[in-house]
């Protein structure tokens, strides 16, 4: 395990904090802290707002390219102004509030949804010096904030005073709650190994390279790979993305919990979905992909925030790719997948990581055995439980009529 962590701290690396200190260095103490926090908030909102805007465009263009067509390319050069056109459209639509609806809840639901998704962005380390809020229990805070946003889904269904919207909202809520469990259970191994709930600490625990080209990210370990897979599937469900987007499906019972919303509030719901996607991807990068660390030792000259951005965009591309390919799961199949497949696998992953931790001290000759056992502990339950889950489903062989 190579020692030496924070080797290259170039001016490029320090550029954001240098800029921030330039702006606020002259202020006295309490004001300086306030000003720096405000700058951090504005930068996060700006960067992630823009990322959301261009993510919608990227999604449509990548989806288009996968479907052999160009995607939006009329507004601006290659369609680059499309998000702004969509924003203008959404802002100019009439905002309809049903007369029997509860006006406070009706207004509050999308606002709360977006706010909680944004709050969860505060603890992710975006670069070596770029953690907006360096909490010791950052991981706990993150999942608390993203879980609070589920309340807004129920608020949205309740506020419309529409029986069918309420039913659909309860179904959406059931989906979200069911997938919280695998999500959190897949994070526990990371915390166990890193020994800390702080995201910066977790990133630091994944530092270093073996022979300069194999990073110590959690994903290159068997339990880390399993945890990453479970985390990503649960993140798909948490963000209501395909193949778990039944609450938003057109062929669904009425229009789901968003029945009573129109105009900008409707757009806010989708904005919240994208922010949740971005936040969960950011946390996945932090927990499993080594955060802002470079993959190879020689590539450390590229600043840490650039590496974070590259990994984040790769995960978002994965989300879009999965959306383009897979059909939707029905609600009962979705729930069965969560409770009967992902929760058991996540629990078994805890056993795997415990074994991994306790066998860390084995001699070098026994390391392959350690790896083999860990891989077996991951793969065998996957195959067995998977077979049980898909029993009765199989490709079929067809016969032909006698001539």
């Amino acid at each position, binding site marked *: 395990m190579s020692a030496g962590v924070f080797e290259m701290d170039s001016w490029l690396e320090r550029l954001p904090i240098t800029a921030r200190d330039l702006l606020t260095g002259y202020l006295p103490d309490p004001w300086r802290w306030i000003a720096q926090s405000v700058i951090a908030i504005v930068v996060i909102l700006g960067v992630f707002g823009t990322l959301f805007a261009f993510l919608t465009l990227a999604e449509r263009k990548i989806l288009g390219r996968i479907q052999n067509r160009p995607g939006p390319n009329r507004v601006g050069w290659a369609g680059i102004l499309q998000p702004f056109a969509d924003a203008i459209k959404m802002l100019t639509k009439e905002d309809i509030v049903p007369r029997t609806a509860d006006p406070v809840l009706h207004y509050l639901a999308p606002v709360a949804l977006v706010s909680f998704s944004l709050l969860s962005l505060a603890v992710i380390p975006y670069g070596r010096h770029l953690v907006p809020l360096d909490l010791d229990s950052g991981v706990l805070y993150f999942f608390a904030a993203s879980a609070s946003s589920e309340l807004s889904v129920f608020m949205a269904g309740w506020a419309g005073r529409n029986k069918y919207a309420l039913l659909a909202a309860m179904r959406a809520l059931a989906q979200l709650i069911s997938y919280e469990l695998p999500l959190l259970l897949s994070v526990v191994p990371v915390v166990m190994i890193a020994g800390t709930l702080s995201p910066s600490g977790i990133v630091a625990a994944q530092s270093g390279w073996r022979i300069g080209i194999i990073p110590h990210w959690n994903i290159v370990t068997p339990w880390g790979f399993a945890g990453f897979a479970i985390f990503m599937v649960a993140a798909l469900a948490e963000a209501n993305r395909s193949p778990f987007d039944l609450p938003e499906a057109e062929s669904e019972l009425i229009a789901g919990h968003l029945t009573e919303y129109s105009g900008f509030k409707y757009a806010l719901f989708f904005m919240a979905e994208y922010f949740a996607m971005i936040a969960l991807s950011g946390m996945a990068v932090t927990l499993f992909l080594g955060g802002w660390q470079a993959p190879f030792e020689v590539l450390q000259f590229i600043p840490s925030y650039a590496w974070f951005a590259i990994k984040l965009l790769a995960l978002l591309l994965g989300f879009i790719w999965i959306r383009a390919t897979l059909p939707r799961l029905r609600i009962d199949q979705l729930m069965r997948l969560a409770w009967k497949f992902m929760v058991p696998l996540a629990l078994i992953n805890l056993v795997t990581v415990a074994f991994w931790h306790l066998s860390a001290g084995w001699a070098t000759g026994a390391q392959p055995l350690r790896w083999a056992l860990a891989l077996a502990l991951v793969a065998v339950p996957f195959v067995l439980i998977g077979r049980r889950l*898909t029993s009765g*489903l199989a490709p079929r062989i067809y016969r032909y009529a006698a001539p």
Partner: protein
Amino acid sequence: MIESPSSPLIESAGSRVRAVQDDFHGDLLEISMGPHHPSTHGVFRMIATLDGEAIVKLKPVFGYLHRNHEKLGENTTYLGSMPYTDRLDYLNSMTNNWAYALAVEKLIGQPVPERAEYVRVILAELTRLQNHTCLAGFLMQDCGCSGTPLMYAFREREKILDLFESLSGSRMMCNYQRFGGCRVDPPSEWLEAARRLTEGYGAFLDEYEALLTRNEILMARTQGVGRLGPELAVNSGITGPMLRATGVAYDIRKVDGYGIYPRFTFRVPLGAHGDTYDRYMIRILEARESISILRQALKDIPAGPIMDPKAKLRGLRPKPGEAYGRIEGPKGEIGFYLISDGSPNPYRYRIRPPSFVNLTLLEDLCLGHTVADAVVILGSIDIVLGEVDR
């Protein structure tokens, strides 16, 4: 399929139905899906009565696209009805044309030259290819793939439609068959293009199957959904791939041997379970068989006249009588029943639409399933409202 333990279960249509006369449970929820709905394949309305999630009653309402086709047929000459048959099942105009031409040729005893028969088979199989491709795309769209399989299917279908356009002048409303042959003689470049398309289609079907056939989510959505038993299918008059998916070996190309189909070797795939997955897979397998028929037909097509020289184009006055001409269209048995009273217009002009007859079983297939399943089942029956409503 969602079942409740508290009421007696009845075996019916291969699926289980809970007794509807049930005082224990409270109000049943009645929802109306359509006619403006993205998943109902046209202007079609389903009034579903739900108990919780499961459908206990489903009433299809259609007629939104009724255009008086059969009455128009009584007021139009035999030739003039040919373009209207394009618009019946608007995806498969070539086979509609052929069924009608077959009926009139039976009525007047008109022979058809050999080259025309080969061209008819080629076009019918191309139509079958593009219809089954369409269905695969639409079914996947109903299952929730956001458009990708649909776009791939339509990309290939466009090539077939381009062939139709360069031959008959129109992609969908071909108006191509005539009584006694075909309207336009396909040139050799067209036949060459058809050959190239046939060779390339197998690769597309392979890629499509790699995308979908073993997809676990697709299997979970379609296997066991909308099961149909063979007795009920035969008793209800179901024809086409829906019937063969239940295991009944009835393909009019083999049974009637109309045209020159007995000259071609092809197999008829049969399903075993009769569920949505079987209906989907049978169509993919039939598409492969169509490719094989196309290869044989394109190899053996002879030179000769494309239209019987003694056939009359206009002023047709058949002797009084009746005739029923049917073919194996891509959706099932499409038949035309004509009664002539000696005048230029038919006395009675009746169409047997396969989609309409196949749709009568929608309620039986959907009982016990959820609304999401009902959409998928409707997609697998493969209806076109132009044919259902005429």
